């Protein structure tokens, strides 16, 4: 025996116009059916964060002066740790050169392999050991770049930051100067922050 008293039997709210609803469904269905046709060769919407970072890495070469000539006559952009760029970095430097020195992309696992590099991008996969890595890298004339938090505080030179959906970068000038690099004023002008006090420990 079950007694039921609906103390508050509330009438349901009126349903939205079924015509609008059906129109939406039709639209969705139409798009679903059309998608394989529409697909062909449309450029993607906005670029991804890593694509823009890859473009920056390529650009930085023109705004930095190194104390030594390029090792092996190659402008090597090295990715230390797991590569976040996918094909983006390779395709951006393909066939490019700077002052007659061709670009290349290398993947390295340890700072000891960085002596042939111009730019070392430290992947977020190395976040846990970034401090000892930077101590080693500081001995070489390489531009260190990363997109992890506190990278510049720990002695990195260029740190990408996301501001309002745009990729900006901050510069630690002291770290760069310690390694003998000269950063052009143009680069510093675009930087969202320039720090001169160096790493903290």
């Amino acid at each position, binding site marked *: 025996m079950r007694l039921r008293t609906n103390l508050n039997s509330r009438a349901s709210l009126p349903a939205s116009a079924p015509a609008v609803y059906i129109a939406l469904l039709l639209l969705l269905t139409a798009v679903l059916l059309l998608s394989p046709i529409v697909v062909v060769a*449309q450029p993607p919407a906005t670029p991804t964060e890593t694509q823009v970072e890859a473009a920056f890495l390529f*650009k930085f070469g023109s705004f930095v002066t190194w104390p030594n000539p390029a090792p092996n006559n190659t402008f090597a952009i090295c990715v230390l740790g797991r590569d976040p760029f996918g094909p983006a970095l390779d395709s951006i430097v393909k066939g490019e050169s700077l002052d007659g020195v061709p670009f290349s992309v290398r*993947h390295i696992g340890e700072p000891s392999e960085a002596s042939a590099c111009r730019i070392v991008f430290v992947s977020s996969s190395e976040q846990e050991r970034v401090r000892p890595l930077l101590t080693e890298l500081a001995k070489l004339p390489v531009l260190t770049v990363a997109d992890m938090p506190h990278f510049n505080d720990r002695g990195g030179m260029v740190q990408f930051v996301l501001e309002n959906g745009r990729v900006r970068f901050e510069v630690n000038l002291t770290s760069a100067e310690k390694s003998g690099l000269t950063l052009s004023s143009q680069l510093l002008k675009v930087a969202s922050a320039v720090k001169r006090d160096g790493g903290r420990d």
Partner: protein
Amino acid sequence: MLRRVLSGHLRVCACLFTLVVAFVSPALAGDQGPSEDQQNNLKQLSLEQLSQIEVTTPSKEPVKAFDTPAAIFVITSEDIRRAGVTTIPEALRLAPGVEVARIDSNKWSIGIRGFGSRLARNVLVLIDGRTVYTTLLAGTYWEVQDTVLEDIDRIEVIRGPGGTIWGPNAVDGVINIITKPVKETQGLLASADTGSFEHGTATIRYGSANSKDLQYRFYGKGFSRGPEYHPDNRNFDDWFGGQAGGRVDWQRDPANNFTFQGDIYDDRDGESVVATTYAPPYQQVLDDYARLSGGNFLARWDREQGEGKSFELQAYYDRTNRREPNFADLRDTFDLDFTQHWRFFSNNNVTWGLGARFSHGHDLEVVSGLTFDPSERTDRLLTAFFQDEITLVPKKLSLTVGTKLLNTNFTAFAPEPSARVMWTPTRTTAVWAAATHAVRTPSDAERDFYLTGFVGIFPGGIPAFARFNANRNFQPEQMNGYELGFRQMLGKNIYFDIASFYTHYHDLFSEDILGGFSLETTPPPPHYLLPAEFGNGLLGDTKGIEFSPEWRPADNWRLRLSYSFLHMSIEKSPGSLDIGTIPGIIGSSPEHQVYAESQYDLTKSLQFDFDYRYVSDLPGQMPYSTVPNYYVRAYSTADARFGWQLNPNLDLSFVGRNLLQPHHPEFGSDPAADSFNVALVGIKRSAYVKLTWTSSR
């Protein structure tokens, strides 16, 4: 039975085949062009132009999650947007191994690797470091966990025990919801949606900065959602509410970062509950609104100490005020946590911490059949943990060991140890294994709770009841988990993740009948009573595997699949008095789940996304009905979203949810939900349109 299973599988196969065809046909066009074009365009830009270009931030998580020796899955902000979901529980459907079943419009049953239930008592849920798990009835009230979905940075879902770091009740998993730093949410965001089931949601958020080092944002939102489909027309489950809040991020100097944040909310959630009283009418079904309100305030200090050391200190206050038609709880929680990271000898990474939480609950008696004694009480939780990640072979092999010690007003000191091994033989392959012990601490629901159900009128006109009495001897539920996982990146565009587990449980929650009917005179009037209590009378194990590959055929196209298999076997422990809850437990979590998803950028400004999901049947989920074989059947459904960027500020999207049938039930009644459905609630097909305006910052 076999036929049903087979036909279910065939349906899955057929649908998958259709999807694969849909996926592959454009891929055959072999379209790598856009990527190169785009990169060529990018490199023509100047530094200034590059730093002005707006970017999407897809998941970097495969990179970060790759080295984690746990079954972790990260739902990103982009995933949430493109899935077209409007609530946090719906977003959790994206993660493998998580079972999300919508009970009705404002209630969900959520489980990780089994034990799905309304409150998910074995899953720990945090929002920006604040635990939203309640010790009142053990679990999470999902309907009041909300924020501006656009401001969520990611939801980290960790399947398997996470007790060592995260704390008690992280037995089957942890759900960690993290909002974006204020820096990333500057400017104005205004959005509005309306549709057949989503009657309307309006959101406004504004972020600004006082200086480079101090940014703030605040928001307000309001929503109204309709009822789901009720065959008996009791459309009790519509809901509406509002929420507001804000956050300040302050960088005092590079070494000291502070965050202050808070929220307040007030909701009305329609629900159907049973009210039992010892006096006539003994039992009523009340369809009414629950009044749910609350707020919280949190402060955190992150400090870099140098020499490999850093710490964070966090304090929060949280108030929840639940006034349901059959009971009420007013709860104030204070929490203080300290965590320090310390790396030394270049191969040790130590994390340790201390925490204290006091939760004061005041439970009002609304009906005599549901009471707490004592009605006012302070729950205590003290924790200390230590964990060391030891690098055995640099970049190849690491071992993480640690334990948590916890003490509550319900338990003596209980340890939660764990050991995890991570092996990365190459940069694209990772293998991990873990052995862990975790506990689910008792709650007020077992220790102080009196719940009465009406049985009937006995001869002589005397009513008879069954009552779960408080069990002061209820012990923590124990689990030992063993996990093995494998991750692989194939080339640059294919990633897959496999995790498998075997978990053994003992002292599991049971519903025990203690004796026969006897006459009870207080509370009056005299009635027969069958005494019962919640006990620890079950044990068993679960095993399963989750397979989740991801493929990016082109820069503008992302495909994901996940398949989760779960097998549960639960039995009575020797001497158990359990009334027979086992089929209900096992039958409330699906054995098979499939989720397939495509995110596609059609053009610069058009996006088309859809997903398909399959969930196998839940024979344990049947309403109190006289219809035989009336339970939640296996279902397949699909969602789709069409997004159109009208101009840089304005985004229009059309979303269809649950498209494959007019309505389908996903869950029946749930004891914890206290509901008394006579018919399964159908989750409706629905559509809505959403307009989002973002200021040009």
